[in-house]
Structure formats: C-alpha cells, structure tokens
C-alpha cells in the first residue's frame, strides 16, 4: 500500500517523544518522594524496609520494559534501513511504519526513520507525503546537520516533482548560499540539473557538466548514475547524440536503465534507444 498524506502526518506526530505527566524523570521523582515519606514517617519496621525495596523493584521493572520496547523499535528501524539500502521498498515500508508508530526517544533515530520513510514515498512517486516527511525532519529541533541538509535537498527535489517551480527555485537559491556538506552539494547539483532539463534549458545544464560529474563521482558512488543519465538526456535534447551515448553508458554501468527511468521518467526514450551494458562472461 502506498503512503498517503494522513499517514505521513500521523507518523511524524506519533513518533514525537511524549511530554506527558508520567514522563520518566517526574515518575522517578514521585517515587523518590514516596520513599522518603516512608522513611521519615514513623511506620512499622517491616514497612520501612519493604517500601524502598518495592520502589526499587518498580523502577527496575519499569525501566526494563521501556528499554526493551525501545530496543525492539530500534531493531525494527535498523532492519527497515537495511531493506531500504537493498531497495526492498515494501519490506522497508512495513518495518519503518512499525518502528515509527510509537514515540522514538533518540532524535537521530527518529529523523533517520522519517527520512527513510520519505525515500520510500518518493520511490512510490508519492511526492506530497514525502514532502511532508521532509518538512517534519527540517522542523525537528535536534536533527543532525547531515540529515538536515539531506532533507533540505530532497525537499527541493520534491517541490520540483510537484511542479511547484517557484517554491523550488526560491528554496534552491537559499540552499545555494548554505555551506552544504559535499554529498548534499552534489545532490543539489542533480536537483539543479533536473530543473534546467524540466524547463527546457538543456544548454545551460551542460555548462558546468564536468564539475557536476566529478562532484557526483567523488561523493555519491552509485547515486551518481541519475546525474549521468540527466547529462545524457541534456546532450540528447541538444541533438548531440554522440556525446549523449558515453554518459548513458556511465549511468547504466552503475544502475540499470529501468531503475534510472524509475528515478526520472524523462529518461525513458534513452533507455529504449540504448540497451543496458551486459556483464561479459569472459
């Protein structure tokens, strides 16, 4: 089942750590006060001995239950992230939804889970829920800087895919000024390249193509494939098929044509024109 807006909002809200009356430290403080009362008020010696022990037992059992529940959620989250890495999207979705359907107290784990779910939504071409999840990551107060910039660049791409061109351009201009880490900078280059191609500025897309390609190769690994694919498309749209071909080869050396088309539907004509490189037997 595909992720929808309601699910995205619900996950972002439910995964927030609770700030209720029975928050851990308040409960502990209450128990400590109860213990002190039992010590200082005259009570039978057995009770004097029993109350602190019962409190200690209660605290231990409570802590153990919380830790066990958190550990299960944490394991589910890790398994979900692994499934996402292996591009097993249905499995990733079910594991991530299960782990994020209760408060996640580790802020880095929470934002990591939201980001992963947003990527699943992107894969399902559900860009609106993905955008909402990216926005929840960006508004998380204790988000790691690398996760923040990853979400920011992905948000720019989601805006483009939702045809909110003006918002996307404004947001990209803000990101341009920020000191992005190199992988996020390379991802931003891909977003810019896509915008130029989408708006029919293929010539402009090819102006800094060497720099963009080097940046992608150094920082994105296999993730550079869609950039090479977009460069091939830009050349192809310029009518320079001879230059387009080697870029398409580079792209399909890293990812299959079908996977590239899933990233960018615009690449379909190239995938149909040039078949994938097969792994030689000898």
């Amino acid at each position, binding site marked *: 089942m595909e992720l929808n807006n309601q699910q995205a909002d619900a996950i972002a809200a439910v995964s927030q750590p609770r700030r209720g009356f029975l928050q851990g430290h308040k409960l502990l403080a209450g128990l400590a006060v109860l213990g002190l009362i039992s010590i200082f008020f005259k009570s039978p010696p057995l009770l*004097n001995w029993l109350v602190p022990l019962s409190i200690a037992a209660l605290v231990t059992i409570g802590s153990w239950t919380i830790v066990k529940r958190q550990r299960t959620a944490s394991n589910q989250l890790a398994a979900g992230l692994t499934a996402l*890495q292996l591009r097993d999207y249905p499995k990733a979705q079910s594991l991530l939804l299960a782990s994020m359907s209760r408060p996640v107290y580790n802020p880095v784990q929470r934002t990591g889970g939201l980001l992963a779910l947003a990527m699943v939504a992107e894969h399902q071409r559900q860009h609106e829920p993905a955008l909402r999840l990216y926005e929840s990551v960006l508004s998380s107060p204790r988000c790691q800087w690398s996760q923040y910039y990853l979400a920011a660049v992905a948000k720019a791409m989601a805006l483009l895919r939702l045809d909110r061109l003006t918002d996307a351009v404004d947001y990209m201009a803000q990101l341009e000024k920020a000191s992005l880490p190199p992988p996020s900078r390379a991802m931003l280059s891909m977003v810019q390249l896509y915008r130029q191609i989408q708006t029919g500025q293929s010539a402009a897309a090819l102006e800094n193509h060497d720099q963009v390609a080097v940046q992608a*190769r150094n920082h994105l*690994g296999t993730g550079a494939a869609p950039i090479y694919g977009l460069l091939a498309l830009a050349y192809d749209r310029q009518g320079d098929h*001879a230059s387009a071909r080697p870029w398409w080869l580079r792209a399909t*050396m*890293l990812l299959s044509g079908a996977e590239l088309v899933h990233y960018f539907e615009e690449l379909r004509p190239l995938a149909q024109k040039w078949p994938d490189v097969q792994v030689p037997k000898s």
Partner: protein
Amino acid sequence: MTHIQLQTVLARVQRDLWLASAAKVGLLVVAMACLFLPDRNSNPLTSINTLGLLMVCILWVLLTLSSVKGGQAAHEVDTMLAGGNYDAAEAGLQKLLRRFSIYRSTKLMACHKLAILVHARQQFAQSVQICRLLLAQRLGPVRALAIDSELLLTDALLMLGEMNGSHTHLSRLARYRLNLNQQLTLLPIRLGYELRCGAPDAVLARLETKMHLISLMPPYEAAQSSALLAMAARREGKPLLCKYLWTKARMYADIDRMTDRFPELAALATLPTLDEEMDNHEQN
C-alpha cells in the same frame, strides 16, 4: 600517536576497566549491607543504613552523570572522525580515555574509536594492538564491538602482509551473523585477501552478489572492490570482464585512490575504460 604513547594509553585503559569493575562491586556490596544488615537506630534520619544507602545512590548518580558526559564527548569524536578531523578527534579521545567511568562500555567504545582513528591514519600495527586488547575484554553490553574490532583487525593484518593472521580472523568473522554494513566492510578485505593469496577464481565467485553489494558501498570502497575484481578477471584470463569491471571501478574513483591500499592495482592503470573508448570512437 607514538608507540610509547599508545602503550601508556592501553595500560591506563586496562587499569581503568579493572577499577570500574571494582567500584561497581564495592558500591553494590555497600548498598546490600545497608539494606540487609540490622540497624538498632530506630530514627531513620540518623540511621547509618539509610545514610549509607543515600550516599551510595548519590555517588552512583554522580558517576553515571560523568559517564553520560563521556558518552556525549564520544559522539563529538564520531563527528570529527567522519569529517576527517583526525587531530581534534585524537585530542578528544585522549581526554575521554583519561576520564574515569564506572561503565566499562564508555571506555571500551572510546578504545574502539581510537582503533578506528589509527586505522584511518594507516597506522596498522597500532590498530592491531588496540583491537587485540578490545577482543580480549568481556564486552558485555557493547558486544557488537567484537565484530567491528575483528573487521578492523583483519584489515590491519592484511595491510601488514600477515596473511595467516588475516585468515584466522576471516574464519572467526564467518561465524558471526553480519549486518549489511559489516558485510560491505568485509567484502573488500576478503577480496584483497583472496587476491593476495593467489585465488582469483575465489574472488570472481558469486560475482553478481558481489557487484550488488558494491553498488551499495561508498565511492572509495566501491572503486577498490571493483578494481580487485577487475584484477582477478585479468589473472583469470577474462579480458572483457576485466575491462568492464575496471570501467566500473573508474566510475567511482581515480586510480591513486585505489592503489594506496593495494599497490598491485596500479598494473590496471593503462587499461582503457569502455566510456573512454566510446568517447574516442565518437571523436574519430
């Protein structure tokens, strides 16, 4: 970090680990004594047992808070290591290792980060020493460190040319159930080991799975693994496969980044890649 400095640090770590265990046992014994020994004083305010228990609790909380601070400092070291800021990471780790912690896990984690740091600086002999110290400990709640330390140790031994040692630890690793990231770390180590042992057929076995794993790696590791596969294909007399894999390697990184750990890969440098050939063909 010099050899003598490392010896001092490791001796301190061992002493602190012993002290942490002793402190924990000591506090527990005092707490039990306060709870169960008879106390004739009927006023709980002046009761030695109550005061003793209170003191133990306060001391435990203070020591825990100090350990938590250490844990936060360890996270900062992680960021420094990830950013390649090794000098700052070393200073942070030295401070962390000097700090007393009642929890052995804090000290063991810091020790593991030190191993990662010296490994990243290619000080493989020192990395071996730290990993061996870690693996000799009772890791308890941080037993996941055992696999990461085994991986570091195997790689360090391979880089030092100690093939027997690498083999022993590769066999030990085969007994663990590795997660995906650990499998990704292990793959280039195993490929390098098999290639250096003169088993290119083993390197090329299950090629499809290996190529899938490579596609999930960061660029540097992906380049190295693909180049090792290309070298194995060359040794097996498969020129087309060799060219394909070498092209793939070059998609990820420059040659010098691949040869710093495996100098034997320099022999592939003159090989043209498929895209270069295509570029030349189109130009002609």
